[in-house]
């Protein structure tokens, strides 16, 4: 559905995208994840033909976005960041205007507008002026607009930004439902959102893609976080020494807590799970065990880890350059 090769975008003096390549297959829901200013919106604007790339190739539905810009735009439903709308129009009026612009014939318009109004839960407000609607409703108007022409591809830039928790849940559910019929590329910097809605995550940072995989795989391979917390009743220094000796344990951090228990935080070696061995060690020594848990790795941990590694690498490169200059 989307094929991006070696995409680079330079604004005056700033490189927003630096050799980005990725593909999105038909039917996927792909989450574009990155901190603010990572290049998410820039990529989306290039995909929708709003701005061109400095170099690289971008194909949507087999069409080049630079050469067949109008044809691509007919196939893409786009909701830009901050969801700009004509606030002086009524909801139904706006959707009628947009469907005409998108070239829907009259008969199809008559059918399609009530459909998207229904799908996005806008029936009750279809005669209200957009400027008078709450942010959640406006967001749905933006979604409804993106859906009008039944596009092959939906591109949603930060679809849940600025919504309250209830609205966020509604919009996410809506996106999930839409994913059954459309290919979706959405961007966000809210991690649970990706975990909940997307089949695949692309992590982008400083204009470069750092990782691209399913949320589960990312967690498995990176195994960031995954700290094991143990609370045992026993002599502090002995507990510390013996637990450190357990196989597959990278490092530990023990702390006495008031009631005579020792709380130990252990970092396992990458890809291993030493919980069994920890249990056996505790039993062998006759200590009392009241907690043995492993923190679930969240996408947030992965994200922080990946971007931190990248920042450190960047810092090193800079350091090298500096020393060369000296």
């Amino acid at each position, binding site marked *: 559905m989307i094929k991006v090769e070696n995409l680079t975008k330079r604004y005056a003096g700033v490189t927003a995208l630096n050799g980005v390549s990725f593909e999105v297959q038909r039917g996927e829901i792909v989450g574009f994840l990155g901190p603010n200013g990572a290049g998410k919106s820039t990529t989306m604007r290039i995909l*929708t033909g*709003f701005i061109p790339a400095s170099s690289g190739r971008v194909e949507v539905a087999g069409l080049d976005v630079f050469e067949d810009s109008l*044809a691509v735009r007919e196939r893409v439903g786009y909701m830009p960041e901050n969801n700009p*709308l004509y606030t002086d129009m009524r909801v139904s009026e706006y959707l009628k*205007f947009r469907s005409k612009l998108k070239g829907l014939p009259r008969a199809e318009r008559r059918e399609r507008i009530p459909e998207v109004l229904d799908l996005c839960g806008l029936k009750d407000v279809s005669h209200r002026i957009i400027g008078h609607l709450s942010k959640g409703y406006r967001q749905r108007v933006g979604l409804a607009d993106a859906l009008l022409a039944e596009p092959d591809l939906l591109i949603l830039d930060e679809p849940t930004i600025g919504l309250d928790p209830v609205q966020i849940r509604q919009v996410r559910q809506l996106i999930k439902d839409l994913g059954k019929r459309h290919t979706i590329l959405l961007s966000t910097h809210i991690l649970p959102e990706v975990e909940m809605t997307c089949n695949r995550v692309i992590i982008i940072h400083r204009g470069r893609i750092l990782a691209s995989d399913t949320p589960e795989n990312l967690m498995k391979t990176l195994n960031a976080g995954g700290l094991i917390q143990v609370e045992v009743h026993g002599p502090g220094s002995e507990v510390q020494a013996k637990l450190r000796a357990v196989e597959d344990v990278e490092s530990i951090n023990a702390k006495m807590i008031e009631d005579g228990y020792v709380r130990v935080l252990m970092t396992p070696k990458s890809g291993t799970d030493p919980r069994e061995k920890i249990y056996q060690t505790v039993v062998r020594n006759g200590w009392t065990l009241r907690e043995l848990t492993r923190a679930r790795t969240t996408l947030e941990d992965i994200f922080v880890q990946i971007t931190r590694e990248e920042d450190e690498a960047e810092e090193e490169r800079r350091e090298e350059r500096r020393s060369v200059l000296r």
Partner: protein
Amino acid sequence: MTNVLTLLRRELGAYFASVLGYVVLMFFLVVMGVTFGVIVGYLNRGPTQLTAMKIMFSMFWLPSLVVVPMITMRLLAEEKRAGTLEMLMTAPVTDFEVVFAKYLGAVTLYTIMWALTGFYVLILQRFSVGSTLDLGPIFSGYLGVIVIGQFFIAIGLLASSMTNNQIAAALMSFAVVFLLLIVLNWLTYLFPSGVLGKVFHAISSFDQMEDFQRGIVDIRPLVLYASGTALALFIATRVVESRKWR
């Protein structure tokens, strides 16, 4: 073309969805109405060479200078500020279609505005005693105000494309219209003859309007303003496109 019509309807809707359309019409009708009243009172005193509509048309500079910046300032500046330009330009429409529809929208409002003064013609026709109204100069007079006004609208649209601040756009178009209209008129007085004088007389809107309201439709000003409009719209389209190569 259907895209242009769709966009044009939206533009006209936007004028009347906000108070702007009504305020502009009111401003214009108050000024013209008062002027008309005074003119009719003056002409009632005795026979003169002037006709009421001639004097009305010679007021054309006022809407050009004041109304044009008012109706053009938001056209593109507001779209840029609100980000709706992105919605527009990611729909399957070309940049020129958007610019052209906005130009047409403003020209339509301007034309409606002047068309409302048609009531004055009806009033004159109904109440003038002993003489029939000569409609020829009235038609050519209307042609003149529209032809000149549409060019200044294209200028205003160009100004609006260059900024995302409506006030800046309004001031820019006011300044340019002031130069092309008022300053050029002053120059025709400063240079009554000579090559420069000829040039100034040929391109001064006041001189051209003089002809139009007399019933003379000269092809030269028509071509001049049409080319000026084409150039302004072309540059405005380029400015809108400039997001692509900046």
